[in-house]
């Protein structure tokens, strides 16, 4: 029958609409307002999954985000999501879910065989075996272990959904919208403060949604509705349901994830982010995250049908479902009586209360009495019966000290066991904030003590147990927080809650059983997800894992997807008992973000796909694209790499481009070069200190090449700088270093030499840069430059002129990176495209050819010009490149100078830049990155002399060329060496690194 465990009435579900869903292929029905967990219970489905290690049948244990065992795989295909908690999945029409970690099915799971071996598979067993023989780990053991481990499956397809971020500031951020959170929000909002209120559940209200308590004399749900109405009136209040506060970072930086569309199922709009990661910088934070009930640790306490007491009440009261037919409660505290009896009164019969305490509280007994429920004080559940569902519990009397058992066993048949070992305040966020905890031995839990950041903890999270007190302290915290954030308004009356005292508790960390714990077939589970039993914890303690951090790692307790929300306190208490230590001395493990797991997608946000990183394009980019250019990624830039024509290979295209430049004229988009405008009376002095060469005497209108080193003497950047006026220079940097160089200049100006009067302004993007190179470049340019005299006399090599080109204001630099006659034109970026096209047009008659970075590299290598980052790698000083000529001997100081005289830097046999030619086959191009050795072969380690930094086929020369950094290379010129590759070695001859026009006549002409 459909929904046979649904109660006839009540609950916060909408019975007017039926939702259809499937679980493990079976069709079921539920209602809006259900979670998958409540809908499964409504249909009598209690076996949900299999445990991590032993593959024991498991059901749902809680009603919230602390759920350790009710995990499912939601949906299939691209939308699938592993390891979701059934207790948090809002039901939607068409939902489909399956069990995880079970094969072939959750009903019949082969992995259950592990259960039989469980006697061997104790904590840390894998450290003690699977060690030999060599090679077996990788090939045999590890694959088996890997296959057995893991829970759900990762999707196999890219995610069809999108995710985004939202960065906001708040005066008061409130985590958790139970009665305490709402009360705090009201108080803060009334001052006019900017308030953010977030709760991970679909509805605000927290425990008020099921507790049946009243506030201000109103039924809980009416009070919530009224409060929310009021909050919505305040303009600066942001209400965020379905939003988990998952991280508390430095300086009150709060991270939350909002699940915006999951609950809509297949109907969700595709243009709206599925999850949104909120980043909130909050002046004050109020943590009102409630508390988690903890399980009792008793024999075989993990069977489907065994759940937390409060959860039992949540299912009957909030969802109007019965978790089963007949229940028994096992507890050590009074409050659980209330939960269980509420459930009982709500329609799910409770047959007995097994209380481990000899003397339950009077109030608790009165509650039981009034509901006519039998109480067995001084008793323990020693074990449970059943497999895929609990079918009964065995109860014995405890000895007066509460540690042992006596008398006979009484079997109580039931299909549901409620358990409650007390409450653990959710101090996760507080701990993440850096706050220190204290142990409260009365409530047997850790509570906030020392605050490091500007936050407050209220309500159950603060260990406050009487509702009235929760509301009062929360309202006060909300008000004070707002005041501290700068909002002054008189406090209004706090909401009045009920004053029922939840009663006492007696710690009972492991319930006595018929065998000593850990020494019999019964398993006393502590961490239900990772299958960690009390016996495992005791074993770890015996083996010397006494630090709680060691205990965690050796047994994996608390390391599952629930991060031990229900289990950690039990585990550390058991450890304390085993090592005769006090609980506060044992302490907790470290709380880390996230509070509950967060999708990678939401953390990445929109920084994926085409938005993953800016693609920087030059003003001529569209033109290059139109010409079918292949692009090279250089930092964030896209630069034309080469321009293949129909049918051409890359090599053919590059050859053609190279020859065009050498024989006629080519043009290159050099816009990406960094450009820095440098002005001030001390500009020349500044350059003198920054570059290795001298700058003071550079004439106006003249250009000079410079090298920059870091203080350690290693080359950092290079480029041509031009003097535009007495106090005015324009510097160019490499494309990749533009920003770094500007920062570097500013750093020295501001921190080392504030006395220098120099201003630097980045103009990298102001100008498009077109480099025209080749013997015909002057003629091409002349057609566009009207009245500028381009003659060698009027416009010599390494000089600059301003004028107009093709209708655009321009600076023309006669500089060359190809060794050819060459002009670099800077025009305001607006004109880049037009001038480029004009140059193409003007050059048509001369066979002008656009060329890309590859050709540029070949041409400069023919000339022996270096590329920073290719001939250098952070270990190269100018002298290594044979560039002593650019290192001033006169200047007393410049950046890097002092480092040149250190013993290692001053060595004469350092790696030096040389050329290499292949000996046997002149056309063979050495791989860049090939290492160079003396001998062709050797037994490793083979001594290496250096490596090939650049290597190309030179169409101009008709053979291959290479540059290399070789140990003592200058003195090896003429020697033959080897480039050993994977299968063979190539013989090479060391030559001068300039292959073409060594005198530089072409550029100078």
């Amino acid at each position, binding site marked *: 029958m459909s929904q046979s465990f649904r109660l006839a009435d009540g609950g916060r579900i909408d019975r007017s609409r039926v939702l259809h869903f499937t679980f493990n292929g079976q069709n079921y029905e539920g209602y809006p307002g259900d979670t998958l967990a409540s809908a499964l219970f409504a249909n009598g489905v209690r076996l949900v999954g299999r445990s991590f290690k032993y593959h024991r049948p498991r059901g749902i244990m809680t009603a919230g985000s602390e759920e350790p065992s009710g995990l499912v795989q939601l949906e299939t295909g691209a939308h699938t999501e592993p390891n979701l908690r059934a207790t948090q999945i809002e039901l939607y029409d068409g939902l489909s879910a399956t069990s995880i970690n079970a094969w072939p099915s959750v009903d019949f799971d082969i992995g259950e065989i592990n259960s039989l071996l469980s006697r061997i598979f104790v904590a840390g067993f894998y450290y003690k075996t699977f060690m030999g023989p060599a090679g077996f780990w990788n090939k045999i053991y590890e694959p088996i272990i890997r296959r057995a481990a893991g829970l759900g499956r990762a999707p196999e397809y890219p995610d069809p959904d999108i995710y985004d971020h939202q960065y906001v500031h708040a005066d008061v951020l409130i985590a958790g919208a139970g009665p305490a959170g709402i009360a705090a929000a009201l108080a803060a909002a009334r001052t006019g403060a900017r308030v953010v209120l977030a709760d991970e559940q679909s509805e605000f209200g927290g425990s008020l949604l099921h507790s049946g308590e009243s506030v201000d004399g109103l039924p809980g749900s009416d009070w919530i509705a009224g409060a929310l109405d009021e909050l919505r009136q305040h303009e600066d209040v942001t209400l965020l349901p379905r939003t988990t506060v998952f991280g508390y*970072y*430095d*300086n009150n*930086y709060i991270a939350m994830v909002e699940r915006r569309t999951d609950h809509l199922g297949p109907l969700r709009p595709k243009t709206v982010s599925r999850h949104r990661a909120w980043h909130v*910088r909050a002046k004050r934070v109020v943590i009102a995250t409630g508390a988690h009930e903890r399980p009792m640790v008793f024999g075989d306490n993990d069977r489907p049908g065994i759940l937390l007491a409060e959860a039992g009440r949540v299912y009957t009261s909030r969802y109007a479902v019965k978790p089963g037919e007949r229940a028994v409660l096992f507890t050590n505290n009074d409050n659980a009586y209330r939960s269980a009896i509420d459930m009982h009164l709500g329609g799910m019969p409770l047959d007995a209360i097994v209380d481990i305490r000899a003397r339950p509280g009077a109030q608790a007994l009165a509650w039981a009495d009034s509901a006519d429920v039998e109480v067995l004080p001084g008793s323990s559940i020693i074990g449970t019966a059943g497999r895929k569902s609990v079918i009964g519990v065995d109860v014995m009397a405890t000895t007066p000290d509460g540690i042992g058992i006596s008398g006979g066993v009484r079997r109580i048949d039931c299909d549901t066991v409620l358990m409650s070992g007390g409450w653990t305040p959710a101090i996760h966020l507080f701990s993440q904030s*850096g706050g220190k905890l204290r142990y409260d031995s009365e409530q047997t839990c850790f509570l906030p003590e020392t605050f*490091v950041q500007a936050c407050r903890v209220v309500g159950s999270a603060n260990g406050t147990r009487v509702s009235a007190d929760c509301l009062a302290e929360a309202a006060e915290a909300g008000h004070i927080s707002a005041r501290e954030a700068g909002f002054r308004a008189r406090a209004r009356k706090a909401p009045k809650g009920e004053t029922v005292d939840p009663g006492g508790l007696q710690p009972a960390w492991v319930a006595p059983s018929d065998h000593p714990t850990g020494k019999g077939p019964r398993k006393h589970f502590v961490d239900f997800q990772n299958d960690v039993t009390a016996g495992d914890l005791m074993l770890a303690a015996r083996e010397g894992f006494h630090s709680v951090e060691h205990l965690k790692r050796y047994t994996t307790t608390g390391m599952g997807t629930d991060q031990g929300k229900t289990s950690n306190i039990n585990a550390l208490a058991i450890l304390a008992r085993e090592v005769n230590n006090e609980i506060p001395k044992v302490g907790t493990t470290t709380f880390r973000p996230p509070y509950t797991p967060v999708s990678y997608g939401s953390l990445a946000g929109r920084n994926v796909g085409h938005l993953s990183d800016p693609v920087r394009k030059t003003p001529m980019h569209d033109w290059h694209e139109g010409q079918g250019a292949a692009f090279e990624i250089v930092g964030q830039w896209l630069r034309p790499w080469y321009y293949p024509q129909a049918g051409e290979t890359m090599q053919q295209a590059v050859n053609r481009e190279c020859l065009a430049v050498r024989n006629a004229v080519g043009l290159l988009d050099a816009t990406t070069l960094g450009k820095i405008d440098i002005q001030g009376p001390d500009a020349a002095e500044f350059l003198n200190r920054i570059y290795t060469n001298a700058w003071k005497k550079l004439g106006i209108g003249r250009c000079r090449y410079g090298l920059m080193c870091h*203080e*350690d003497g290693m080359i950092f950047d290079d480029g041509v700088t031009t003097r535009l006026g007495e106090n005015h220079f324009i510097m160019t940097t490499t494309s990749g270093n533009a920003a770094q160089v500007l*920062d570097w200049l*500013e*750093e020295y100006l*501001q*921190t*080392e030499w*504030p006395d220098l009067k120099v201003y630097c302004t980045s103009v990298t993007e102001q100008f498009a840069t077109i480099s025209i190179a080749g013997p015909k470049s002057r003629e091409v340019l002349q057609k566009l430059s009207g009245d500028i005299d381009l003659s060698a006399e009027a416009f010599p090599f390494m000089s600059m002129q301003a004028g107009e080109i093709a209708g655009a204001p321009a600076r023309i630099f006669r500089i060359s990176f190809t060794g050819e006659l060459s002009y670099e034109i800077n025009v305001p970026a607006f004109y880049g495209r037009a001038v480029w096209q004009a140059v193409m047009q003007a050059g048509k008659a001369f066979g002008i050819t656009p060329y890309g970075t590859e050709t540029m590299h070949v041409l400069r290598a023919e000339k022996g010009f270096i590329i920073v980052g290719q001939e250098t790698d952070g270990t190269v000083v100018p002298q290594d490149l044979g560039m002593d000529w650019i290192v001033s001997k006169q200047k*007393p*100081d410049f950046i890097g*100078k*002092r*480092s040149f*005289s*250190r*013993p290692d830097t001053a060595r004469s046999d350092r790696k030096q830049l040389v050329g290499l030619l292949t000996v046997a086959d002149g056309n063979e191009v050495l791989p860049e990155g090939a290492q160079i050795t003396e001998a062709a072969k050797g037994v490793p380690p083979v001594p290496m002399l250096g490596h090939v930094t650049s290597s190309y086929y030179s169409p101009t020369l008709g053979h291959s060329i290479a540059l290399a950094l070789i140990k003592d290379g200058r003195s090896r010129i003429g020697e033959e060496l080897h480039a050993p590759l994977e299968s063979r070695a190539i013989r090479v001859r060391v030559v001068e690194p300039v292959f073409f026009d060594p005198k530089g006549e072409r550029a100078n002409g």
Partner: protein
Amino acid sequence: MFVIHCPWCGDRPETEFHYGGEAHIARPEKPEELTDQQWADFLFMRTNPKGWHRERWSHSSGCRRWFNVMRNTHTNEIAGSYRIGEMPDLPDGSGPAKGAKA
């Protein structure tokens, strides 16, 4: 991600800044007069203290100014910012280190 106080722009998120390491390591006036050891001290050796630290930051996405921050590297507590050339006392009362350049 810290909130860093730019002496000009006020409180801004750390992602707008560039970190510049230990502050007040002045570039030697006459490097050529230093021994290799002294030069290595300047280049590489750092106090790297656990506790209060004077450090340089540049507001690289904003006003591009360099300035100094006093931060406790143990707790990440930030005690304040000051401009180049200044040297307020640290919260633990300690003044400038001997020989340190403001």
